[in-house]
């Protein structure tokens, strides 16, 4: 699983960073950034929560194809 942040939509609420700091961080510009290219299985549920709770709908998930 991979996640992407739409820079045009992110307003820097930091909700994702608060929910899973191991995956998201706020950059020095104040916007969210994804720290890892592949989401480890144990973090996937929390990342799903972050996607749902982003006030701007700026985060999206790309599932790996088989």
């Amino acid at each position: 699983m991979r996640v992407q942040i739409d820079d045009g939509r992110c307003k820097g609420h930091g909700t994702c960073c608060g929910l899973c700091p191991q995956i998201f961080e706020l950059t020095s510009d104040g916007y969210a950034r994804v720290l890892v290219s592949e989401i480890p299985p144990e973090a996937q549920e929390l990342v799903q929560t972050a996607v749902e709770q982003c006030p701007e709908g700026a985060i999206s998930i790309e599932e790996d194809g088989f």
Partner: protein
Amino acid sequence: MKIADIDAINFFTDRDVVADPFPYFAALREQCPVRREPHHNVMMVTGYEEALAVYSAPESFSSCTSVTGPFPGFPVPLEGKSPAEIDALIAEHRHKLPMNDQLPTLDPPSHTASRALLMRLITPKRLAENEAFIYRLTDRTLDALLPRGSCEYNGEFAAPLAMLVVADLLGVPDEDRDTFRDVLLRKHGHGEQKATDMVGSADTKMSLNPLEFLYQRFSEYITERRANPREDVLTSLANAKFPGGATPEVIDVVRVAANLFAAGQETTVRLLSAGVKILAEDQALQERLRASPDLLGNFVEETLRLESPVKGDFRLARCPVQIGGVDIPAGTTVMVLNGAANRDPRMFKDPDNFDLERANARQQMAFGRGIHSCPGAPLARAEARIGFRRLLERTRNIRISDRHHGPAGARRYEYVPTFILRGLTQLHIEFDPAEGT
């Protein structure tokens, strides 16, 4: 205004600070961006980085007193207690605290579940449909106001807009919207109210209390839609699930719906009138925005930064923690002042000035940050952007009413007398409608 003695000022009760809290915030920050005030022993956070640090640490700071802080304060003393004891006391007493069933006061994990439910009610699709409604409602309201040449903007434009936008978002049926308007905007009686407005409510007394009214109405809606699903927004509300698939109790859905009304009203009204006041005081700014509506996005951000409608939010330290190099003992009440962080000169150059082209205006934290960051932010931004845009497009000029607010240079404005909200009680404006509108 220069502050001689910061500690002589009681932020929570002084009327002068209500009208203009910013010199006080600046004086506090100059001494230390994390500094205790002596009247209620609250640690005041006025720095940008420091505010961000508190908002980013929900494991160290509980939100159980987020809306009320020291009033009435935590029911039992917490000073000198260990983190484990404080956690136990929060668990034991939180249900007695004001607004304890509302999202802003919840902590994880119950906060995470309730907020997820709320976010399922305001999906991108709903927001897009809602934006079209905002546009139509804005124009309909302006149709009635513009020919008059003047209005009291808060009561006649902003308050009905903010209320009806949430009603639309949640799918309140058209035939019920007048009742919502009457009850929630506190305009009762005056001969206009029809008996049919009270459909579904046996006791009209109950429906006069806004929160009771909302709980009652949404309980009816959700229960009815669960029994008889239809193709409407209320049905999707009724069918929304918690993450993991569990069906919420009716009251869980009712709470988040009521929360949207409670949180999306006063705040949005103050944002709208703060922006229109800035516009009405500056004809050149109006002209620039009429010519370049693309700048409206940054206009909204800069208004949020300069006049943050929520001055701040409280947190309760669960454990000893250091913020900005200052030790905060476990059990301390902290107030994170969004309105002060937004004028921190280390973050925003020349912070007391309105700068339409401020490059980092989007980094304002009027909506808070972190897991409690305002879920209604996109809604507030859409209302402001569309409301300002249509007012500018449909007028040739917008002016402050000298009759109500005094002449330029000696204006009189009254601000809502609370330590949480920042904003005008009323804003009287005058305008000349544009040709052909």
